[in-house]
C-alpha cells in the first residue's frame, strides 16, 4: 500500500494548498484529473476531525451529483477514496476561476468591464437560481468556486449552454447541503454578494443583474429568497455597527 501511494504521488502535482484540502493535478486511468484531498487538522479532536473530513467529502460528492442531474455543469466524479479522503474528478480543461476572469477584464478594459461582464452575471444568476429552485445550497458561493472553461470546439455540447464560448462550472461543494428554506438560500446569495463586492469594486450593478436572472432561473418562490437576502443584509449591517 505504501509503495503504491508513493508511485502515484510522483505523478501528482500540488496545485493548491487550501485551508482544509490539497488540490493536485494528475491522471486517472489516463485522463487528466484533479485530486482533492482533505487532510486532518491538528487542533480538532481526532474523532471530530475524522467525521468532519468524511462528512465534507460526502457532502461535496452529493452536491456535485445533485447539480449535474438538474443540468448545472460540475466536474465528473471518477473515484472517491474514503480511506484517504480523496475525490478524483474531471480536470475541467482550459479553465480559469470567475475571480481571475473578472480581474483580467478589469485590467484589460477597465472602462467598460461592467458591460463586458453582463453575460457572465446573467449566467451566474440563472445557474444559482436553478440550483436553489431544486433546494441545493452551495455553502461557499464565491467567485473562486466558479470556473469558466473554454469548450473544445467540436465538444459534445458545443454551441449549447455556453456564454461566448465559455461554460460555467460550479465546484467546491464541501459545505453544500439540501434545504428548502428561504433563509439558507438567502445566506448563499449573501455570501455571493459579499464575495462579489469585496473582490471586484464597482460591481453593484452586476450583482443586480445576477439577482434579476436569479429570479428567472428560480421561477416561483424567488421573491421570498430576495426578501430574506434584504433581511440578512440588515443583520449584517447591524452586526458591523455594533462591532
Amino acid at each position, binding site marked *: 500500500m505504501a*509503495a503504491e501511494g508513493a508511485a*502515484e504521488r510522483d505523478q501528482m502535482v500540488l496545485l493548491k494548498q487550501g485551508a482544509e484540502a490539497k488540490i493536485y493535478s494528475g491522471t486517472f*486511468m489516463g485522463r487528466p484529473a484533479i485530486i482533492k484531498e482533505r487532510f486532518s487538522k491538528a487542533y480538532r479532536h481526532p474523532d471530530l476531525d475524522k467525521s468532519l473530513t468524511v462528512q465534507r467529502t460526502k457532502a461535496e460528492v452529493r452536491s*456535485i451529483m445533485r447539480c449535474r442531474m438538474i*443540468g448545472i455543469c460540475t466536474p465528473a466524479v471518477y*473515484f472517491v477514496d474514503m480511506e484517504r479522503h480523496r475525490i478524483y474528478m*474531471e480536470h475541467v480543461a482550459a479553465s480559469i476561476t470567475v475571480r481571475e476572469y473578472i480581474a483580467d477584464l478589469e485590467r484589460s478594459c477597465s472602462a467598460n468591464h461592467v458591460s463586458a461582464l453582463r453575460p457572465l452575471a446573467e449566467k451566474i444568476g440563472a445557474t444559482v437560481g436553478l440550483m436553489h429552485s431544486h433546494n441545493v445550497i452551495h455553502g461557499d458561493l464565491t467567485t473562486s468556486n466558479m470556473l469558466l472553461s473554454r469548450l473544445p470546439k467540436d465538444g459534445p*455540447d458545443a454551441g449549447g449552454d455556453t456564454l461566448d464560448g465559455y461554460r460555467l462550472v460550479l465546484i467546491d461543494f464541501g459545505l453544500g447541503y439540501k434545504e428548502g428554506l428561504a433563509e439558507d438560500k438567502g445566506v448563499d446569495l449573501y455570501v455571493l454578494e459579499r464575495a462579489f463586492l469585496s473582490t471586484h469594486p464597482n460591481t453593484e450593478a452586476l450583482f443586480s443583474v445576477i439577482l434579476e436572472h436569479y429570479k428567472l432561473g428560480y421561477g416561483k418562490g424567488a421573491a421570498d429568497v430576495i426578501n430574506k437576502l434584504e433581511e440578512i443584509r440588515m443583520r449584517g449591517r447591524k452586526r458591523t455597527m455594533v462591532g
Partner: protein
Amino acid sequence: MAIETFQNEIFPDSAISVALFESVANCNDLKKLAMTGELDATLLNPSMIVDTFQILVACNKALHLDRCKKRVTRTLHSEVIYNLSPSKNISDAFRKFGMGDKDTSVLLVQIHSLRKGTLSEVAEHVQGEMVDLSRLQEVSDVNKIKKIYKVQEAELRVSTLLDAIVSRMTSKEFVSF
C-alpha cells in the same frame, strides 16, 4: 482484434485486460464455468457499456475496495459487475450488467498482476469472434443505458453520457438516484 491491457496509476502493480467477442455460441457454458470459479475473469453484457473507461472505473473501484477490505461481493471480479450498477442491489446488478446465458456477445475483463495476465487462456473457452473494442459503440444500447442509470436530458446538456454514468457508479454509496 486483440486483448487490450490498461495500466492504473493508483495500483501500478496491477493491470486490467479487456476483450470483446461477438457471435458467441456458448454463453450458457461460459456462465457455468464462471459460476464454478473456473474462469478467472468477469463476463459482462456489452450492451450496457458505452466506453472502455466505464469498465476501468469499475475495476479501479473494485481494486480499491478489495485492498481496504470493503468489498461488497464475493470476489474481486464479481465486484466489477456490482460497481457498474447505479443501484446497491447485488442481484439486480448481476442481472443487468453480467453476461446473460442466452446472449451472443460478451466482454471479458480480467484484473491481474502487472506482469502476468491470463485473459488469453480464458478467451480460449469462448466460441465466438474477438472484435475490436471500438465495436462497443455499435453494440451498446444507449436508450436502455439512459433508462437504467436514470440519465435525463437536462444532464446531457452539460455532460457526456459517459461522464454521467461513471459519476453515478462512483457515488452510489452516498447518493440515491
